[in-house]
């Protein structure tokens, strides 16, 4: 299967860099998979699980707040926070959910409120996803 260069960077470090076969990115408007030769695209990220597939194996990472850019030279994901699921502290997501809920109660009506509510949902979804895999182990 054709591979393409993929880079995942967070402010603290370059988390991943290499040739991969497929990456599933949690986009702001739904997950999308990227293969080699994908059309140029820029998408915002929502908090979620990013999956890297290479050579039959899959790596799962939790990413939050950032962007994915696909162009002819490959895929670049810039996330404010990115960490492998195995290294993720389960309390971390819980804390984020609580912080997001606080923001939701403080948010004024309208756009900001919708955004805050959406974020709480997204984070809760991540928790469920993580919970499912941890139970499976």
């Amino acid at each position, binding site marked *: 299967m054709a591979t393409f260069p993929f880079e995942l960077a967070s402010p*603290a*470090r*370059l988390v991943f860099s290499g040739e991969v076969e497929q990456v599933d990115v949690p986009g702001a408007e739904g997950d999308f998979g990227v293969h080699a030769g994908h059309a140029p695209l820029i*998408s915002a990220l929502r908090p979620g699980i990013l999956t890297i597939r290479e050579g039959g194996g899959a790596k799962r990472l939790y990413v939050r707040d950032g962007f994915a850019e696909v162009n002819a*030279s490959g895929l*670049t994901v810039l996330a*404010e926070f990115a960490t492998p699921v195995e290294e993720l502290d389960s309390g971390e997501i819980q804390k984020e959910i609580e912080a997001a809920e606080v923001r939701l109660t403080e948010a004024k009506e309208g756009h900001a409120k919708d955004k805050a509510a959406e974020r709480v949902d997204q984070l809760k979804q991540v928790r469920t996803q993580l919970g499912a895999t941890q139970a499976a182990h």
Partner: protein
Amino acid sequence: MPSLKELRNRIASVKATQKITKAMQMVAAAKLRRAQTAAEAARPYAERMEKVLGNIAMSITPSPESPKLLTGSGKSDVHLLLVCTAERGLCGAFNSSIVRLVKERANSLAAEGKTVKILCVGRKGQDQLRRQYERQIIETVELRNVRTLSYADADKIGDKIVALFEKGEFDVCTLFYSKFRSVILQIPTAQQIIPPVFPDNKEIGNGAVYEYEPEEEEILAELLPRNIATQIFRALLENAASEQGARMSAMDNATRNAGDMIRKQTITYNRTRQAMITKELIEIISGAEAL
């Protein structure tokens, strides 16, 4: 000629100073390693961010509706200089070289008839700039109590700048910091962040038309402030590494100077001691001869 006691005291005091400079050098060396790793780890993100933004900037045609943070306010009357320096001194020319660059820029801008405003991050820069530009300094952000620099710290400064920009307080923002090359080489750098200037990279992007998800405006509205915070974060990390590097070499020099001084003073001390013994001997001998 100073007495022996005076000389002894002087040597003891230089020795004490040497101990301090030596300790500072070792502390700086230990901190440098950590700061350097942090600065190097942050580089890819900032570089990729610039690249992505550069690609977007190339693919869109500037229009009056495009975000001001990208295209600028259309004027360049008021310049904001964001000066990042250290919180502590005793690090050689680290702070002064940044300040010198700022002063050059401020003076040349003033000569062109532009208004200059200054926002200081770090106390040392403010101390040095206050004398000349008292009224132009609009704010000073202190990072004294920050132990390990986090992205959130840079984000706060970024928010402040974006808020000022949206209020129309300035048109162009330039970031000043010291780029870390090596322990003995730090390069004071000026980087324009509003509107961002992109290096010409023709091999990428090649005018590809991107699809945006969600809308272009929404993405840019989020990406642009984040880029500013990222660039500030990088500047602060580079600065932290540069500061420790500069301190290390400054303290190394100081330790060596103290060593030289001790050597010289010890020679003087010994000579004085011998001269006194000789003098006493002469006195005794001539006293005996007189008998």
